[in-house]
């Protein structure tokens, strides 16, 4: 298994853990948790599939010539975008799926990426309050 697939597998495991946390929270705090849970599972399953498909697309795109890779990646993006649109439409139209759950399920993986790559870095927080003028290089 190459490093990219390992990375994807790790993120999918984090996604599963976050899903379980959200399901538990939904059952504790919401009056009608089942619709929310359906939406959450539906949204996160499709976002996981999209994430895997994105990895496959990029792995293939880097072996092409730059011009071909550009067109290929854009085409594949729009295919994923249409899939996302269909999923959102279904969750809006179907009364037994909560659309908020679907939206949260679709965006969890992005927040996991932020949490594991940006918000776990102390230097990031220090840089927020650091003035560029105070740096020794003088820029």
């Amino acid at each position, binding site marked *: 298994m190459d490093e*990219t697939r390992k990375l994807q597998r790790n993120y999918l495991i984090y996604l599963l853990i976050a899903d379980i946390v959200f399901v538990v929270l939904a059952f504790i705090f919401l009056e009608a948790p089942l619709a929310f849970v359906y939406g959450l599972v539906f949204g996160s399953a499709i976002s996981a599939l999209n994430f895997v498909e994105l990895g496959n697309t990029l792995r293939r795109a*880097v072996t092409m010539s730059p011009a071909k890779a550009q067109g290929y*990646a*854009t085409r594949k*993006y729009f295919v994923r975008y249409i899939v996302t649109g269909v999923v959102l439409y279904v969750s*809006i*139209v179907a009364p037994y799926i909560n659309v908020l759950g679907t939206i949260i399920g679709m965006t969890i*993986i992005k927040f996991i990426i932020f949490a594991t790559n940006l918000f776990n870095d102390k230097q990031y927080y220090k840089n927020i309050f650091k003035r560029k003028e105070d740096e020794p290089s003088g820029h």
Partner: protein
Amino acid sequence: METMITGKALVLACSAIGAGLAMIAGIGPGIGQGYAAGKGAEGVGRQPEAQGDIVRTMLLGAAVAETTGIYGLVIALILLFANPLVKLLG
């Protein structure tokens, strides 16, 4: 003959225009991802041993970049199929 435009018709028309404008948000990530993939392919051509690193970095960047497109799509679909503004009219 004078045609009356009802409040509901006006809200629906403006919502349709808003949904169309929100869909513009979906174009940006597509162009950006394509551009990044092209540059990634160039990078791999220049330094083939860095392919894994390039793909991994691009994967995370592309996944995050898609978010704004999804937000635009959500706004557009909600305006079209679950418009909360129509309910406000009563």
